[in-house]
């Protein structure tokens, strides 16, 4: 169980039971991993902190989480959420545009050494091409798994094609009905 504080304007999945299904399906698809977690567009930390908690359960106590998010209020919530779940010593959150984070915070470089998983859950517009380039460059250094969660299959498909051009392999795609009785669908993909 992971607990989250929700303030009036902070993002949280609107459907809690759906979010549990979404995250557990995503983590199952991701399977075993070794190393640290980089969570881009992390919001208040819901995916990254859940994955970190799971890693601790599996006795991977040296796993660290780096969360990057452009909205400063969300980062304040993320730090608080890390704390109330006893995960603050293993997690680092910075407020920055995803594509500029490493340049803005050089100290992150050390934290993402031994990178095992990159999580991306971008807004509906999908990924900035620079972000895809950065992730592809990281891939040259670390053999991580890429977990892509999206509420817009159209931009996700576009981005996956770009990742494949950069040498990634798309292992599995699974939609989850996070918004029942609407035409919206949440989508999970794992790339390696």
């Amino acid at each position, binding site marked *: 169980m*992971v*607990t*989250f504080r929700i303030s*009036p*304007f902070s993002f949280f999945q609107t459907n*809690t039971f759906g979010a549990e299904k979404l*995250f557990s399906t995503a983590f199952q698809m991701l399977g075993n991993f070794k190393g640290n977690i980089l969570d881009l567009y992390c919001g208040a930390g819901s995916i990254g902190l*859940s994955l970190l908690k799971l890693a601790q359960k599996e006795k991977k106590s040296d796993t660290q989480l780096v969360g990057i998010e452009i909205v400063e209020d969300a980062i304040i919530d993320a730090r608080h959420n890390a704390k109330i779940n006893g995960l603050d010593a293993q997690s680092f959150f910075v407020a920055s545009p995803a594509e500029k984070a490493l340049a803005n915070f050089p100290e992150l470089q050390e934290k993402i050494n031994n990178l095992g998983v990159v999580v991306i859950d971008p807004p509906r517009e999908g990924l900035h091409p620079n972000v895809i380039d950065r992730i592809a460059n990281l891939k040259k250094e670390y053999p991580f798994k890429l977990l892509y969660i999206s509420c817009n299959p159209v931009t996700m498909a576009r981005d996956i094609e770009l990742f494949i051009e950069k040498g990634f392999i798309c292992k599995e795609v699974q939609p989850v009905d996070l918004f029942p009785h609407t035409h919206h669908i949440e989508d999970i993909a794992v790339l390696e």
Partner: protein
Amino acid sequence: MPIYDQKTHQGFFRHLVVREGVHTHQLMVNLSVSLDNLNAQTSELRNTLLQEFKSDPFLKEKLTTFVITNNAGLSDTVKNEKSEPSIFWGEGVIHEELHF
């Protein structure tokens, strides 16, 4: 109290955001209103309304936190550069859990 009109930018009630922690049974209500263009009569009504909210036993029992956001922005969104939330009661936050 008049409902906010997106075309004329007059009126009081703009949005009502209800968020529930389904595991924690905590409830947040965020009432988004416009305090611009209140005349003497609607100001009076507004004060009466807030007093009614405050003394309502049902609301007091059910709502973990009650936030009122003054939204002076023109766009039809709850959160914009001109919206200012203020806590009416509670801590201004709720908690939710994810169970795996």
